[in-house]
């Protein structure tokens, strides 16, 4: 029998997705720019992005992305309910956590992998809150953050997706994630964009 890589269609069969968590570091803004603006108005799922940024200084991520997006873009706020069809960014200088009641909380705990926000913390707590109804996507980056978080999503039965390392601007983060636990899908950005549009929340 010929071995064919699992298709997006196959990986999505029977899945219901309550939230998407995307992690990225070096090269992340460009990568996000090529997948997120495709999300249409009325997109049924919240998208939560953890991007490594300089802490201690405000960044313009929300403004920059809102200009190109049809769905609302916000910085995730402490104790705020997660609203479907919204793109959230983790605030600089804080870890972003998901609670069981599907609200956000923030913490000032020490940086993890030199990062605050750390992708691992958001992904692990989101896996706890959403279980199998979570999709995790890890993109370009020069750091091992995200590998443990994506593995936690996989163990909880969620969908795990890693950017094709050869296409990533920096392949360290995707390679770490693939080594930590074989993801469901390894895809180039165009395919990740297509995948996001196929997610359903029935």
């Amino acid at each position, binding site marked *: 029998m010929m071995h064919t890589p699992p298709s997006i269609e196959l990986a999505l069969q029977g899945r219901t997705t309550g939230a998407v968590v995307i992690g990225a570091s070096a090269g992340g803004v460009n990568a996000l720019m090529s997948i997120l603006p495709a999300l249409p108005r009325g997109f049924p799922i919240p998208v939560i992005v953890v991007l490594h940024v300089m802490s*201690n200084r405000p960044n313009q991520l929300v403004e920059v992305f809102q200009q190109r997006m049809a769905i609302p873009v916000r910085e995730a706020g*402490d104790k705020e309910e997660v609203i479907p069809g919204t793109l959230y960014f983790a605030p600089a200088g804080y870890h972003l956590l998901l609670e069981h009641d599907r609200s956000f*909380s923030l913490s000032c705990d*020490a940086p993890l992998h030199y990062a605050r926000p750390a992708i691992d913390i958001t992904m692990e*707590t989101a896996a706890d809150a959403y279980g199998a109804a979570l999709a995790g996507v890890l993109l370009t980056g020069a750091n091992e953050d995200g590998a443990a978080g994506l593995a936690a999503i996989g163990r909880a039965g969620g969908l795990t997706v890693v950017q094709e390392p050869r296409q990533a601007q920096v392949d360290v983060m995707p390679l770490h994630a693939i080594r930590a636990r074989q993801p469901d899908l390894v895809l180039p950005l165009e395919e990740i964009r297509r995948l996001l549009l196929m997610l359903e929340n029935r």
Partner: protein
Amino acid sequence: MSEEAGPSDVDIEVRILMEAIFLKYSYDFRDYTGASQKRRVLHAMTEMGCSTVSQLQSRVLHEPAAFSQLLQYLTIPVTEMFRDPSYFVSLREHVLPVLSTYPSLKIWVAGCSTGEEVFSLAILLKEEGLLERSIIYATDINPQSLEKAKKGVFPLENMRTYTANYQAAGGQHAFSDYYTAAYSAALFDRSLVENVTFADHSLATDSVFAETQFISCRNVMIYFKKKLQERALGLFHDSLCHRGFLGLGSKESIDFSSYGPRFEVLAKRDRVFRKR
């Protein structure tokens, strides 16, 4: 349709652990936010050589020393001097000019951890000529943190960041004027904390102890569930004098609290409020 994941065994164990701690030691962590509490407990569990949270609970219940060890993980002190420098700029602009009209001042730093915020505020008050007539209450639930705070010794390697923060906060001197470097430590000027009372106080279980003109409580309430946030804000509201000031962490909000309408916003981005 989306279904929530129910409580896992670990979630149940963590909850029972918090009940046990409350019953045995009167420390109330039951209304702390779940996700970060669970992370801290699991970290402590590993570091303390336990294989389950139940095992950790058994040790904590039977060995008081194990509880004080766990307490260090549950209240991980992570703070820096002049964190969010613009907060201090706002205090200089909006708060200190009013405070300077009082003959004597009482200031409460709630959740002072290892003291970085206390020393930062003391420096600010000194530069505005208010330190000598101020009494600062610096409170925390972690006795080991309070001991560290009293010493005023911080890692020398942090001074570069703190100096940059201090300058961005509108500092008027050389930051190194305030400490003596010795080996890998920076010993801060004792006179800064001459009028500071370091005390054990819990926002979860204790009550108001003094009337104050200004309360700074930053990045403490993010670890609280709404119910406990409400309790803490109630204490602050009751402690503050008429038209007293409240400073919170840069991502903390009173918008959704019943106390929201009882404060006016002085500096939205820097989270500086004034009691109506």
